[in-house]
């Protein structure tokens, strides 16, 4: 928020930042019109669906129904529904339970990887991020087939000891699984804070007589605390928005969270209950928006800490010793086994067998029939093609859009930049399911958009908004690395701001754009919730197909689709690493 005051007499006193002032270029020739138009269009794309949700929540029926009138009936219904409060309570328990597991583990992992001499560091750095890139619907399905009531491992365990000592179809099971799969989100932020911590601060403590444990406790931990708090709040947010895990693991036993509550409302009385869904979405927004806003402040504080840094690298590492190595690698190995090998392994086996159970030798059941069946059903074939098109081509176009938005906000300190800052917060506060639903409504509601609804364009726009905050942050992070003098020297040489962007800024950030494309591609590949409502005949995507297939119980097909999704994501990840994407930002 850098609101520049034009009138010096009205200006607030801000002496402290005298030397970090943003250059205030002459208003003429500073692409003001471009910035306003781009940010305005973005505001339209974000505010229209959100506005429609809010409008719908105050109607007594679906907005297209002639009988719909303004009223609070929907709120009255939801707020008197016992199931709603149950879902709300479950969601809160789920979110905080997940944080209680993910934060300590993620922090420990970050410490082990950045601050100790643990072996296989380079490999681990990539491996620990893997759960983050797999969609939670795939993960949840993977757990079902491996450790569900009739999962491979459960059956093996029953053979061995007579009972299955776990039940993943419970709130505890959901929390453990979600907690373990969100460890990377914590690791990412905490490890990058630990890495950017100047080593001289720790060295100063060591030369003052502290041993490395004392240094970790008294210097490192307090310094990275903002990032831990940030990661925790991010995970609370993700917990409130989660959909795949409760849908797969909670639904069979009637355990509902807010998102699955919305999903179940879809066809409550045989007619669309948009107004009720809208009310729950509004409630969700009221919970998550403050969280997002708080995170934004936290992040700024965290940056302030990091900005103090001198040289970041060359950190003296803690020697683990032989036993320490074994224990540390054991902990990480166990976690990786549970959160990567179990689900992915389960899916891989399940995708190639048709039947299994007690006394069935899986080797006898090996078959490619599940994949053969995929190619026979037109909607599934389209789903795979659409997913690839949306992520590869759509991802590239989305990076282009994020670049245009990023440039509109680049070295911009006016009111429009504040608007941009706040617009980006909104999609983060809404789960993909709700954004998809809202866009579905937009495409029904706005007459000239209606013809576009059954095309991939509707999904693409929703995806762009879902990926907006992540994608824009990637792009802004890349753009900000261009030294301001490089742009200023182009301007003084005679280039307009547009020429400067074209000839200097974009060529310099090009490698970053490729990396961003690969990461956005993965985000679009794994997306499943956004398409749940938007998807129609001709616009199927793998993730949303899995959601709708769940109700039919076509496990063979889901397994094959899930494996394809994992393979595609793996390819995307390999490409991202190859292009040098900065996953660690």
């Amino acid at each position, binding site marked *: 928020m850098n609101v520049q*005051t*034009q009138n*010096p007499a009205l*200006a*607030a*006193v*801000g*002496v402290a*930042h*005298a*030397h970090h*002032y943003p*250059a*205030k*270029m*002459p*208003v*003429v*020739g*500073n692409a003001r019109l471009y910035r306003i138009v781009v940010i305005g269009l973005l505001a339209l794309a974000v505010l229209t669906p959100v506005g429609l949700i809010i409008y719908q929540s105050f109607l007594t029926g679906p907005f297209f129904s002639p009988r719909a009138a303004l009223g609070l009936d929907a709120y009255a219904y939801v707020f008197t529904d016992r199931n709603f409060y149950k879902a709300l309570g479950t969601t809160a328990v789920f979110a905080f339970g997940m944080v209680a597991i993910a934060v300590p583990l993620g922090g420990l992992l970050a410490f082990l990887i950045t601050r100790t001499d643990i072996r296989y560091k380079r490999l681990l750095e990539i491996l620990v991020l893997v759960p983050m890139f797999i969609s939670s619907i795939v993960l949840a399905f993977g757990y079902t087939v491996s450790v569900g009531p009739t999962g491979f491992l459960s059956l093996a365990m029953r053979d061995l000891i007579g009972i299955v000592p776990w039940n993943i179809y419970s709130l505890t099971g959901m929390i453990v699984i979600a907690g373990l799969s969100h460890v990377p989100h914590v690791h990412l932020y905490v490890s990058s804070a630990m890495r950017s911590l100047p080593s001289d601060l720790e060295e100063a403590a060591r030369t003052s007589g502290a041993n490395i444990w004392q240094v970790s406790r008294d210097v490192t931990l307090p310094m990275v605390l903002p990032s831990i708090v940030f990661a925790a709040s991010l995970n609370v947010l993700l917990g409130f928005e989660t959909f795949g895990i409760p849908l797969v693991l909670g639904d069979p036993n009637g355990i509902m969270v807010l998102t699955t509550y919305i999903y179940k409302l879809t066809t409550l009385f045989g007619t669309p209950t948009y107004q009720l869904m809208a009310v729950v979405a509004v409630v969700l927004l009221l919970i998550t928006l403050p969280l997002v806003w708080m995170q934004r402040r936290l992040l700024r504080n965290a940056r302030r800490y990091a900005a103090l840094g001198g040289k970041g690298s060359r950190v003296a590492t803690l020697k683990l010793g032989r036993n320490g190595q074994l224990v540390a690698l054991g902990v990480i190995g166990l976690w990786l086994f549970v959160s990567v090998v179990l689900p992915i392994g389960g899916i891989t086996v399940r995708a190639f067998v048709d039947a299994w159970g007690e006394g069935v030798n899986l080797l006898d059941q090996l078959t490619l029939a599940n994949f053969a069946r995929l190619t026979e059903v037109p909607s599934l074939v389209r789903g795979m093609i659409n997913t690839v098109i949306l992520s590869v081509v759509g991802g590239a176009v989305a990076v282009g859009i994020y670049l245009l938005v990023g440039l509109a906000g680049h070295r911009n300190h006016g009111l429009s930049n504040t608007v941009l800052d706040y617009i980006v917060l909104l999609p983060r506060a809404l789960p993909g399911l709700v954004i998809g639903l809202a866009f579905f409504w937009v495409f029904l509601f706005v007459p000239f958009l209606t013809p576009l609804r059954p095309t991939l364009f509707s999904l693409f726009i929703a995806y762009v908004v879902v990926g907006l905050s992540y994608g824009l942050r990637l792009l802004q992070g890349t753009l900000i690395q261009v*030294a301001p*003098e*490089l742009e*200023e*020297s*182009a*301007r*003084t*040489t*005679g*280039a*307009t*701001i547009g*020429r400067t962007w074209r*000839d*200097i800024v974009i*060529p*310099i950030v090009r490698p970053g754009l490729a990396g961003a494309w690969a990461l956005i591609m993965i985000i679009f590949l794994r997306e499943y919730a956004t398409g749940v409502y938007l998807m129609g005949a001709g616009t199927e995507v793998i993730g949303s197909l899995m959601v709708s297939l769940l109700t039919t119980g076509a496990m063979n097909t889901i397994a094959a689709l899930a494996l394809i999704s994992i393979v595609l994501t793996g390819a995307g990840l390999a490409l991202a690493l190859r292009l040098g994407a900065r996953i660690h930002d």
Partner: protein
Amino acid sequence: MTELVVNNVQKWLGGLQILKGASFTAERGSIVALLGASGSGKTTLLRCVAGLEQPEIGRIVIGDKTVLDGERKIALPPEQRNIGLVFQSYALWPHRTVRENVGYGLKLRGVAPAEIGRRVQAILERLGLGHLADRYPSQLSGGQQQRVAICRALVYEPRVLLLDEPLSNLDAKLREEARYWIRKLILDLEICAILVTHDQSEALAAADNILLLQDGRIVQQGTPQEIYSNPNSFYSADFLGANNIIKGRVQTLDGAKATIGGEGWSLPGVVRDAAGVSGNSDATAVIRVEQISVSDKAMEGGFEMDLDDSIYLGDRWEYRLHRGGLIAKANGALQIAPGKVWARIPSDAVWVFPAQK
């Protein structure tokens, strides 16, 4: 011919006024140095001329074009000002070769490719960079990068060349060479140049005119000789040269002549800034180190002092002197043993200013 007119430029940042009405002009074929401590506003002033910052008040004319006029609400962006700016960090575009860096300004001005090639090669040859045209900036040394940056800013013949601390990233030996050839180049090409620096020797050696800035104001301007030998304020006197700063009390005052003294000492001097200097008021005197000559033999009119130590500095000796509360440094060619010495301090070299906080 006047190429640049800066008139009453004022700029605020938040509630802080960082330029408080700077005015100056610059001529073709001469170099104006903006000299001042960090935070004095010199770089901001340069950036205002370049159009990289927008002052709230003031008027700037480059050549025959008004590029800024606070009253008429004119503020042209940098690209319409026909200037060349050499950045402290050189700011060469890393993805372009030397040839492409230098030729960019000509390309933007729609010059034919053949002509661009000819003019780029000509200026690169002139600065001894002809063989480096196809290199990328990262493959050049600091000195070479700096010359490329100057070529890039000069090749399209801007009306005004702006240099922002162009020498500060060079090592000491290169810097002395660079300030010589940069001056020569500018005079040969007969362009108007503005040089921002915090280094007094750079300003003295390279500029025809020095503007001394303090706290967003131009406190003195003149030729290097005038600025150095005729300071009009304590700040000017203190900023340039190597100085002895002496606190004392005015003992006698007769027009511009004053005697300043303290416990056990008294020196005749001249008042440089009369405001705040009166009979019996506290005062501060500035004596350039090179104005004091020291001998271990009694000399006529010599000022008796105690020598605490002689420090060897390679090309000279530095003497640490005191007399009562008066502490001073002086230089000489010989080592002198500690003890009683005689110092010659000309009275017109003892500059008396109002007491400084």
